[in-house]
């Protein structure tokens, strides 16, 4: 591959990886801190994208749609945690899977009722609609660079929040011993509610900023959810660092799997089997370290 296209694919893989990180970090935080496996996490990504599309249509700009969408998604997160998720903390994972599976069905159907089943495009905001020329014929859209930048800022912010603030300290304490934190007079239920809402907001925000790039379509959440599972399995569940490494790895493998051309004995392996690459990567990691790269040892 020549240098120009190579640079573009590298930038694309970083951008995709960082976006995945945003979604997967919410998934891994909710599991690591609250012990909840949330299948509906991808649905929040989808809801975010649809909110961006419909609010941008009503308000006239993505810049207005994003804050409004975040407020709405936090509200959805708080409501769901209060009504449903909070009843599952001491229950087996099986019931968490079942309940959140039910939520997926409801989210997909509500999406169909409210917004229909069509595919929609979202315009890139005018301020970011430019492209940066790389060579004489190739250029790279500013909007994708902006996505990467925003994801990096959010990742840094999340790191600071968890390691350097009082709230972060409470969250970490709540993850290791819920009852002890509660007996110290901290409202742990409120902390959990915040964490869940934060995770929902992260996924929805990822959907909002991804909407102009990926377009908005039914089933987009489930596709992303499964990729995020792979990210989390590779990185080690509960580890934000692992989610970052896993997401970047997946971004790289997936992007290059789709553009590389590899044939074995006359049979075109790539890009025909590009859909499989990330799962093979996961299989490799499972053989090497079943607990994930940054995971705690199982058992």
């Amino acid at each position, binding site marked *: 591959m020549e240098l120009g296209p190579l640079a573009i694919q590298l930038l694309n893989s970083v951008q995709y990886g960082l976006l995945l990180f945003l979604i997967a970090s919410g998934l891994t935080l909710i*599991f690591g801190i609250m012990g909840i*496996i949330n299948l509906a996490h991808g649905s929040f990504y989808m809801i975010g994208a649809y909110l961006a599309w419909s609010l941008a249509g009503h308000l006239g700009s993505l810049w207005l749609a994003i804050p409004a969408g975040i407020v709405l998604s936090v509200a959805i997160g708080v409501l769901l945690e209060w009504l*449903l998720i909070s*009843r*599952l903390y001491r*229950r087996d*994972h*099986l*019931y*968490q*899977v*079942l*309940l959140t*599976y*039910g*939520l*997926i*069905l*409801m*989210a*997909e*159907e*509500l999406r*169909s*009722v409210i917004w229909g089943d069509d595919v929609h495009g979202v315009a890139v905001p005018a301020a970011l609609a430019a492209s940066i020329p790389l060579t004489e014929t190739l250029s790279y859209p500013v909007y994708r660079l902006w996505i990467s930048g925003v994801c990096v800022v959010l990742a840094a912010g999340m790191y600071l929040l968890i390691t350097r603030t009082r709230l972060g300290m409470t969250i970490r304490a709540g993850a290791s011993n819920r009852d002890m934190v509660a007996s110290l007079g901290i409202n742990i239920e409120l902390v959990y509610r915040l964490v869940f809402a934060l995770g929902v907001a992260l996924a929805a925000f990822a959907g909002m900023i991804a909407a102009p790039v990926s377009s908005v379509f039914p089933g987009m959440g*489930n596709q992303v959810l*499964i990729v995020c*599972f*792979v990210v*989390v*399995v590779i990185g080690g*569940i509960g580890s934000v660092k692992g989610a970052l490494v896993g997401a970047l790895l997946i971004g790289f493998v997936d992007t290059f799997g789709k553009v590389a051309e590899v044939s074995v004995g006359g049979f075109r392996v790539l890009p*025909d*089997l*590009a*859909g*499989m690459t990330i*799962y*093979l990567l*996961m*299989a490799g990691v*499972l*053989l090497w370290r*079943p*607990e*994930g790269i940054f995971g705690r040892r*199982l*058992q």
Partner: protein
Amino acid sequence: MTRGALRLVAVLALAALLLALPLLAEKYYVQFATKILIMAIFAMSLDLLVGYAGLVSLGHAAFYGLGAYALALLSPQYAGANLWTSLPLAVGVAAAAALAIGSLALRTSGVYFIMVTLAFAQMLYFVFHDTKFAGGSDGMYIYVRPVAAILGWQPFSLEDIRHFYYATLALAAGTFVALAVLLRSPFGKVISGIRVNEHRMRSLGYATFRYKLVCFAIAGGLAGLAGYLAAAQHGNVNPDMMGWHLSGGGLMMVILGGMGTLTGPVVGAVAMLALEVAFQGVTKHWQLLMGGFIVLVALFLPRGLIGLAAAARRRREPGP
């Protein structure tokens, strides 16, 4: 009448009803009953994992789909495959795939296992969805159902929906009995022991990984059997047969009926398919009702319908 005699009468009545159904009911209901029996096989196989071995698999549809695709690929274009060779082959393919996937997935446990099984099922989905060898996203058609010929003699014809029903009924009953025997055997006791306390089983000297792997392969093979029958019944296969909606639906059947029992998944399959039809009659957006129902079951009915019946019985006859 004693409890045992009552139960015997109930079982005999149910058997008589199941055997007489094709003679009494219309074609549509016979086909619907066949579909329920196929799903019951699928749900029982999943319950072996979830309810007995404590392995929550969210990718069980992969093996169902493999059994279905095996039949499609084994069927000549305008003729039926031979039932006696294609059925064992389909089950074997599904069990072999379960052995391979299980050997990786069982290196993990708990919530990892849930995610890994889902991811591998999705991988298989993409293999069939993205490549052309089995029709890609459109899938394949099976124009002629498998032929039950033994050296030219044909004891029954699956093209007849009544014969198909009886064949499915026999296989579902066979699955039920085989699993009941398996679970009563020393193997079954070890499997249950692993669910309750794997450390202890290991310290007792059992190679728990191998037990779980064999269990996973058996469940995969039985799911393949269900997929084979579904493909034969509907006459087509597509990648959605491996999709996670079926895996999730299977889990729902197991829990709604009552996991850790063999009648539970059967009851769950009946209830789920009946509910699906009922909800579809109410609104086009029936998935909304189904989703809400699943949420309520997860919250309020953890032991399923079987558990509900048992609790009611305990209330009526307090304490021994």
